[in-house]
């Protein structure tokens, strides 16, 4: 490695030293502890283009060309300092840290700004704060830490547990509210982001308002998440090794009733269903059956199996290992990292020994990154980044239910407790047959057999990225001007490999005759198929001109940028996108701030004459704390800024890949009469992107020498021109209508964070609280509601139509003959009986039918989410803990997860069913098998909506930095830290009855892999 540095130094360095002249200043920059400070910029005052950077020892040499005889030294996180120098003499400059946070830098689109002069709504987190959180996906670590960030983690499956997230909630009728994700200026999707190794990340920033997102034009309306990765800094080579290992423990494993209770309730249900029938029903279980279930005297004829225990473990393991090397000198800086991540599933091992077919869930990932910066001349910077990921996600192949193993486990039709014995007396596997059992032939086979011998479904993903950039200072034209060109390429290659076999031979043991009934005779061979193959690539070329200059009290920053993007997805028509963007930021004495952005974007999806749109935004800020009167009145404020922005941003997600100008006919079909020609849907050539007007008002304050920092925003977003279906046109038109840009919604809310920092001797701690609130509303959709109370306008996004639950039908509602009294509304077509769910009759026609459904309940996305974070350190000890919660949302449970009796396996909620005796306390309708669909979750009603909401101890990290005095014995190790960390450690919610997690997707069928709490032990060694 060292050899390479020397070579590079020789190559790039020699010519530079030839220019040395006489008026040289030699010096060293030190930090507050008098340690050398490498990488600090030293500039001659009055001649900003004459600058140099300190080396590893903090030393610099600067040729003075001007007359001021002063130099400025500056570096991030420190206050700049001006000193007077004399040519030929040595100077020492000591910098003090920026405790007031005035020089703090924030990331914005295509650049950085000082926090004090920034006018946008931005939240940032440094990756070192989240690096030890034991989860595979970066988005899972952000919730509760960034105001304005909303997320939902709907699954705990290794490799598929990444949370969905939104910035400032949702505002699009098109369902796609995903923010734009930009990693080092390359666009990523949710999945790619989740593959990123957090060890490679420097910071994560979300851009929330028009001032910061309009630069992304027609891609910015959903907000932008910007990730920057780590880069080398001037300094000695430093090697970090991290090793972590941990376990994942299921937070809530579903529990079901045993065979006896289930059989008893099945009889009750069958009896209930025959209410009002002229004949008595046939009971599925006799008293003899019940007795055998109860005493377990006939384990093969009357089995009683806990399938959860039989198939699943409670815990699984995970591991994470990283090595990175970074450092650099004035010519080259480097950051190189490799890492692996692996996480196993909770399936027990059933595959035959020596089979070598891993059927368990797992996630394996390998990440690599090399970020290189070259400075061949003083004004030219070259960047070369190469990074990528290989990963594999595994699923068991023997699962026959589309929704997955967890559906089967919860399902009465697949795995009732009396489905079959765990194993036959001879150790072979059986198959199921019982009232209500699945009829699919492969589904009746013992799941342990299928899981061990049914192969796997594996997704293999390869992702590779290259970025090449050159940044040329154009100081010879005018001070502060620079040009930059960047070309990036991102490619994804995904393949699916399925290994499967059906029709495993099983046998049913008959204890009466002591004989077996065979079903299939031979173990079939595996079949292999390739599925889900995907290829896509994005090439982005960006060229920009930057101009940053101060004239006296006036400071200008301008950016002129050309950006074009070519996206290829398999055999689809490529999509091309081009943007020209201009941006001007101006401040006067850092007191009055103004920002103007204009983006002109085009996308060739749209018709030629309406391909380009202009997205302007204006923002302003006023640093009151820079005013004399303010300083006098409220001297404890280090910073007090009010700011605002207003602008237009667009969104082109989920648009057709081509927009036609005339109706297309299809001539490819055929039937028995010959080839067919069909008219395509009517067209709307005028399709355009969604637009959002974003308004944001905010304050930012730092107080008491940076002890308290505070920022907050109010926002109002008005989204219009949303491409939606035209629902008001009669169907006798006879053709599908094109979508039109008609929809309008709004989204308003506020978010903010306040933190307090204190240090006393060796003890330092900080407390931080943040909260986010966002509430949306539909202002216009093209609708023709059947009845006025079924209108969607005025409701929040994402509601479902269903019945409003008002209680149970009680005995008093029926006459002596068991008939419902007249005047009580009821559905037609079913025999209503006591204990059935009763719904509101909205149109008061005495009949409960589809005319009585309305939009129900609350949306699935929380309107409010918050986080409380504590971090503290004492000598080598550090503690960091985050409590996170969300509320004001609902989710609809259904099917096997909700306790839909005899669709799902029976659980404790079903025991709270209505019976004449428990009429007053019942929380579940009377049991039935197929009697009244209105009692089941297949009929949507708010009975099945749960007011979700949760609080979690989201993450904890306790570490100890081993003192360097101990390490002296081991000479090669320069630093060592050991830590324990946890994720989802404590969980509070009211979802226990529904056997699911509070973040699970609405309409959940109970098929989700349960969320896990993760515990981790790690060590970080520096060499």
């Amino acid at each position, binding site marked *: 490695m060292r050899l390479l540095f020397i070579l590079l130094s020789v190559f790039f360095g020699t010519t530079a030293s030839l220019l040395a002249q006489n008026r040289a200043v030699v010096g060293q920059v030190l930090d507050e502890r008098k340690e050398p400070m490498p990488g600090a910029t030293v500039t001659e005052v009055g001649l900003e283009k004459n600058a140099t950077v300190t080396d590893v020892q903090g030393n610099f040499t600067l040729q003075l060309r001007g007359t001021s005889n002063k130099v400025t030294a500056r570096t991030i996180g420190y206050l700049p300092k001006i000193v007077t120098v004399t040519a030929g003499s040595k100077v020492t400059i000591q910098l003090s840290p920026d405790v007031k946070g005035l020089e703090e830098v924030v990331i914005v689109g295509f650049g950085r700004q000082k926090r004090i002069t920034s006018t946008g709504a931005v939240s940032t987190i440094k990756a070192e704060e989240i690096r030890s959180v034991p989860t595979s996906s970066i988005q899972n670590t952000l919730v509760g830490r960034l105001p304005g960030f909303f997320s939902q983690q709907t699954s705990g499956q290794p490799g598929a547990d990444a949370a969905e997230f939104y910035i400032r909630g949702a505002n699009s009728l098109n369902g796609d509210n995903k923010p734009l994700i930009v990693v080092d200026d390359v666009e990523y999707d949710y999945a790619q982001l989740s593959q990123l190794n957090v060890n490679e990340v420097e910071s994560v920033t979300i851009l929330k308002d028009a001032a910061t997102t309009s630069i992304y034009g027609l891609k910015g309306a959903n907000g932008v998440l910007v990730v920057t990765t780590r880069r080398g800094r001037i300094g000695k080579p430093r090697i970090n090794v991290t090793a972590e290992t941990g376990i994942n423990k299921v937070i809530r494993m579903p529990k079901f009733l045993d065979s006896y209770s289930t059989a008893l309730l099945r009889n009750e249900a069958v009896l209930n269903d025959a209410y009002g029938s002229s004949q008595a029903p046939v009971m599925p279980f006799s008293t003899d059956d019940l007795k055998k279930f109860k005493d377990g005297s006939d384990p093969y004829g009357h089995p009683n199996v806990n399938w959860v225990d039989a198939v699943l473990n409670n815990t699984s393991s995970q591991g994470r290992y990283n090595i990175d090397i970074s450092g650099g000198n004035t010519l080259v800086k480097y950051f190189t990292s490799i890492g692996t991540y692996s996480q196993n599933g909770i399936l027990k091992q059933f595959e035959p020994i020596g089979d070598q077919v891993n059927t368990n869930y797992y996630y394996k990932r390998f990440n690599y990154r090399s970020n290189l910066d070259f400075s061949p001349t003083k004004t030219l910077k070259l960047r070369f980044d190469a990074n990528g990921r290989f990963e594999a996600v595994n699923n068991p192949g023997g699962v026959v239910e589309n929704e997955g193993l967890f559906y089967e486990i919860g399902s009465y039709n697949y795995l009732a407790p009396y489905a079959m014995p765990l194993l036959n007396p001879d150790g072979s596997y059986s198959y199921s047959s019982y009232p209500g059992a699945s009829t699919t032939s492969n589904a009746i086979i013992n799941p342990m057999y299928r899981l061990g011998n049914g192969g796997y479904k594996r997704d293999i993903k390869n992702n590779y990225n290259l970025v090449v950039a050159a940044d040329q200072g154009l100081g010879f034209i005018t001070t502060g001007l620079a040009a930059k*060109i960047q070309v990036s390429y991102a490619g994804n290659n995904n393949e699916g490999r399925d290994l499967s076999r059906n029709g495993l031979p099983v046998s049913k043991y008959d204890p009466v005759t002591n004989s077996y009934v065979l079903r299939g005779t031979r173990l079939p061979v595996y079949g292999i198929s390739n599925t889900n193959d995907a290829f896509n690539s994005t090439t982005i070329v960006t*060229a920009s001109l930057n101009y940053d200059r101060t004239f006296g009290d006036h400071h200008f920053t301008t950016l002129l940028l050309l950006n074009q993007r070519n996206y290829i997805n398999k055999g689809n*028509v490529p999509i091309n996108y081009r943007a020209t963007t201009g941006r001007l930021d101006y401040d006067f004495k850092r007191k009055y701030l103004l920002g103007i952005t204009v983006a002109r974007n085009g996308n060739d999806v749209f018709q030629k004459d309406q391909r380009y749109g202009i997205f302007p935004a204006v923002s302003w800020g006023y640093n009151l704390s820079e005013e004399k009167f303010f300083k006098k009145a409220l001297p404890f404020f280090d910073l007090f800024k009010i700011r605002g922005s207003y602008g237009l941003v667009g969104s082109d997600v989920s648009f057709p890949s081509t927009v036609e100008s005339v109706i297309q006919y299809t001539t490819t079909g055929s039937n028995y009469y010959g080839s067919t020609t069909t008219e395509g849907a009517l067209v709307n050539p005028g399709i355009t992107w969604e637009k959002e007007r974003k308004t944001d008002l905010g304050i930012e304050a730092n107080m008491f020498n940076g002890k308290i920092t505070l920022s907050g925003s109010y926002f109002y977003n008005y989204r219009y021109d949303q491409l939606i279906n035209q629902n*008001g046109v009669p169907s006798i038109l*006879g053709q599908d209508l094109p979508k039109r840009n008609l929809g309008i919604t709004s989204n308003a809310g506020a978010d903010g964070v306040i933190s307090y920092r204190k240090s006393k001797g060796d003890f330092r701690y900080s407390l931080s609280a943040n909260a986010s609130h966002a509430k949306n509303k539909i202002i216009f959709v093209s609708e023709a509601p059947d009845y006025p109370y079924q209108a969607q306008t005025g409701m929040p996004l994402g509601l479902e139509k269903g019945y409003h639950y008002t209680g149970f039908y009680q005995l008093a509602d029926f006459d002596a003959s068991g008939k419902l009294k007249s005047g009580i509304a009821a559905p037609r077509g079913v025999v209503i009986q006591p204990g059935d769910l009763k719904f509101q009759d909205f149109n008061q026609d005495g009949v409960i039918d589809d005319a009585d459904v309305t939009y129900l309940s609350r949306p699935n996305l929380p309107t409010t989410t918050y986080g409380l974070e504590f971090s503290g350190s004492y000598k080598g000890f550090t503690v960091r803990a985050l409590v996170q919660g969300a509320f004001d949302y609902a989710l609809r449970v259904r099917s096997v997860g909700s306790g839909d009796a005899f669709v799902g396996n029976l659980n404790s909620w079903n025991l709270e069913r209505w019976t004449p005796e428990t009429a007053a306390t019942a929380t579940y309708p009377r049991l039935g098998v197929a009697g009244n669909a209105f009692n089941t979750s297949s*009929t949507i009603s708010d009975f099945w909506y749960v007011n979700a909401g949760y609080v979690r101890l989201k993450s904890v990290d306790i570490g100890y930095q081993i003192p360097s005095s101990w390490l002296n014995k081991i000479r090669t190790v320069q630093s060592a830290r050991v830590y324990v960390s946890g994720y989802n450690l404590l969980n509070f919610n009211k979802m226990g009855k529904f056997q699911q997690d509070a973040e699970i997707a609405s309409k959940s069928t109970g098929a989700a892999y349960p969320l896990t709490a993760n515990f981790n032990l790690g060590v970080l060694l520096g060499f």
Partner: protein
Amino acid sequence: MMYIMKYLNSKDALLIPVAIIILLSACKKDFLEQKKLSAIDETAVFKDSVRAKGVVNNLYSNLGMSFNSRRYNNTPLDAATDDAEPNLYDNGIASYYTYKLSNGAINSSNVDKDVWNKSYQMIRAANIYIKNKDNVPLTADTKNFWLAQVKFLRAWYYFILLKHYGGIPLIGDKVFEDGESINVPRSSYEDCVNYIVAELDQAAVFLPTTYPVGDSEDRRITKGAALAVKARVLLYAASPLFNSGARSDDPDHYVSYAAADNERWKKAADAAKAVIGLNVYSLYNLGAAPFYEQFLKNTPRDLPEAVLVYWQPANTSNNFYVENSANPVSRGTNNGYQGLKYIPTQELVDAFGMKNGLPITDPASGYSDGDNMYSNRDPRLTYTVHYNGALRYMGGAFGDQPVYTYTGVIPTSTNRSVTSASDDGMYRPTGTPTGYFRFKSMNNFGTGSGSELYRPWTLMRYAEVLLNAAEATNEYSGPTTEVYDWLKSIRQRALITAGTNGMYGLKPGMTKDEMREVIRNERRVELAFEEHRFWDVRRWKIAPQTENKETHGMEITRDATGKYSYRRVVVRKHTFTNAMYFFPIPQTELVKSSALKQNPGY
């Protein structure tokens, strides 16, 4: 310029050529102009006779949408009558549209819009053809032939709408555009009938009576099809539902004629006789079981009885189309198997008389419930339903083996036919809730893959034409010799014994009312599972009786010695309200179109 010179002298100039190349390529003017996709629009289609013919071919695609054996949740419309039930052991039963159609839960908000939407889509496609018909480069004869098909097909889709909803908006040759205000009122029932009949008459002129054997076009419609559909439209129109005088709840006469008129029966009779008079159709009478075998034929020349046929696309799952939702599971699981979705009722079984032609209610018939109740029955019973012990091919070396529907003690065996009741029997999860399975028009496949058999759907066959003629003639002229002869020919083909008097069990000298009942029962038995019962009970106005009661199944319990006991069990209570004579106009259409009015009762 100075700057540039200086620039060129500096070593930074290295970057200039690179920068210029990148910027030039980036600024390529046509970067957003790369899409050149071929397009076919309306003009291109109708300039090209092959593509234009494709428009006509496409109109055939939904010919069988109402007849479809798997129309609603894999069940046919018959599953919403007293002939059959949707499978009550299925967890999703309540969402079955045929379930709602027979329990009174149907309303304008939950009504299935398949027919409303699909028919108007087809009508639009037909109108587009008619708009462009003169642009197609064809000879006058061919133009007329194609236009005749288009007119027939458009009339057929209107008729499908008419039987569901009563009078519907007639839009003529109109092709609506996006953004056009569409607010067309319904036409009266009478206007719709007249329009459809006139269109069929026009089509019939240019349609051939037959196609030469082996002609590549021989699956297209014929003159006979146009006349037969006309006869059915007129038969429906003459029926009591429409032809009983003015209805106070139907001032616009959307679902009734303004006045009753017995002459409508004559029109219907004449129309049916016109089809008979073509002398091109005959009852299929080949093989040992002609009634069964006629449905397994798949070339036009083997279909002498077929009047109107939908040639569904041939592919593996279509080749098992009916079996895949009606097979007993012991013979099921063919490619595309949906599970058992519907089953025949005891009511349908009881409608079948004896081999001697007498109804089972006749004391002379020799019928009683018990071990022999399926013996000596109308041979059509065996080919319409599977009852306990009915034979079905098993596969492998087994050959034909019984299908068992009993409950109780099931013997153990490695032969699946012996244990068939564990899969197919009553109260088994995969079994039949009524004790029966459909067999009509299903092939006698074995388990597993079996050999495929392509079968078209016969939407109208000559037996129906005869029954249409018989019904209309009896209503107009009473039970004439003609009426007897038509019924006898049907019973003869069914292999009912002629009897010593050659009357095939028909009572000589019946009154008009007696004959009406015989014809109605003959229709039920002969045309079961062919989309007739649902419409027949409505147009005859007998649905309040037939569709308002409990349906039944036959519970057969086997004891350990193999002895059976029998019990009729209630399967489900049906509910019929007066509104249900017609489908409700979908509420979503009513709110979008102020001129559209709802059917009475909804």
